[in-house]
């Protein structure tokens, strides 16, 4: 647990050094990352079940919630564990992508 931020920092640093600004430049990165959420939150963030849709939610709200899950200050079952698997940069990308989606 304690080494986690350093591992992430290293990963981001490596990415930044070799591919800057790859994550910002490829418009599909947000889309691809957001697809990891669809199993529980629906394709494109439009939920077919009881868990909330993410499509069209304000980016700031999604980023704040994900960071609270990541820090463990927002109670949850799986999200407190899953949020820790994403870098802050990835959370920004995912949130930005969902915010831009239509709610259908």
């Amino acid at each position: 647990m304690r080494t986690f931020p350093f591992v992430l920092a290293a990963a981001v640093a490596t990415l930044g050094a070799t591919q800057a600004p790859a994550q910002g430049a490829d418009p599909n990165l947000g889309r691809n990352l957001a697809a990891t959420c669809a199993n529980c939150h629906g394709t494109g963030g439009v939920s077919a079940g009881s868990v909330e849709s993410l499509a069209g939610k304000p980016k700031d709200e999604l980023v704040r919630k994900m960071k609270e899950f990541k820090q463990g200050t927002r109670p949850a079952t799986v999200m407190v564990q899953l949020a820790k698997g994403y870098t802050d940069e990835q959370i920004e990308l995912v949130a930005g992508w969902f915010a831009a989606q239509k709610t259908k």
Partner: protein
Amino acid sequence: MTIQRRDFLKALGAAGFGTAAVSTLPGCATTGGGTRGKVVVVGGGYGGATAAKYIRMWSDGGIDVTVVEPNAEFISCPLSNLVLGGSKVIADVTVGYDNLARRHGVKLVRDTATAVDPDKRTVKLASGQELAYDRLILSPGIDFMWDKVPALNNADAQAKILHAWKAGAQTVALRNQLVAMPDGGVYAIAIPVAPYRCPPGPYERACQVAWYFKRAKPKSKVLILDGNGDVTSKGPLFKKAWAEEFKGIVEYRPNHVLTDVDVAARTAKFDVQDSVKADVLNVVPPQRASAIARSAGVVTANDRWCDVDFLTFESVKVKNVHVLGDAIQIATGMPKSGHMANQHAKVCAAAVVALLSGQPPNPMPVLTNTCYSFITDKDVVHVCSVHQYDKEKKTLLPVPGSGGVSPGMSELEGLYAFNWAKNIWADSLA
């Protein structure tokens, strides 16, 4: 898609895999006739169906996608243990394929792929039909290694000693055996040495059968005969359930490597341990990638599984052939699960769309796994993980500090589990 349009499409009725060999309805939401290439997907499970849908979606209909699948409908392995417990029926875990055709323009061929020619880039089907591809995606699931359970190596025996490890007729038949069993009987499940499809599945099954016995046949027992040295997934959570919720019903015996069965005597035989007779004997046999993977030449690990490049899920050995789902040689900490297959499919779909457009694949794929297990009909536990690509090691690795399991079973997680099923079925098939 607007509500009205969706209702209109629903009103068109189920198309699915009709009697016609190929359903060629164009996708309503898409245009284009495969100008950017042809993809053939073998297998319409969690991996194959998701790959087909996402390639159509992400190529804006520019890539022609054909799915080859022998079954008329998708029947989910996840949640199918609830059919054994009796709180659900098989129809509850069954989803049609019609939306893949109607909404996404996927071509559906109800047939079995029998051979792949990677040089000619063609797939041969049981009907004799041949399909050409630019990229082939194999999501073929598993075959059972019947040679490891010799007495079960024939159809008659397999109809008596059931696996129910591919959801469908076997699931219903096992439920019927449990219902027919007199109170005071023993249900035994033999679990193969890992890796196998759905690591927590056998233990969830033991819970579901115990849940049924507790209510309907309280003098009956559940015996878990595990080829592994310990419970392979969610161990403490399952053991707590067996000690508390199902006290006196479930007995767990590790290190029971099955060597054969006596079909008539319903007896399981082991390499070291004493034989065990049961009233209902359920054998989950050892598994490997399905035969079509062998034909394609992509089986590279222990003569059982398929090594892939985790940036694209392309075979490390055969170009233009991708492999998804339970058939792959897994990376560290990656279970063989339906959720993972769906996630493999999205990484593969993004890569195939990029490659067929002359672009490089995403260099930083991320996958998640969330796996719910039902202890009772409502109370559920989970395990979850996040896997990021490691450029140095060229593999997917769990992110340190992420993922984990439930603190204990809860009804809240039961609601999330049913939500998961609704959403992943829609994400894969609608």
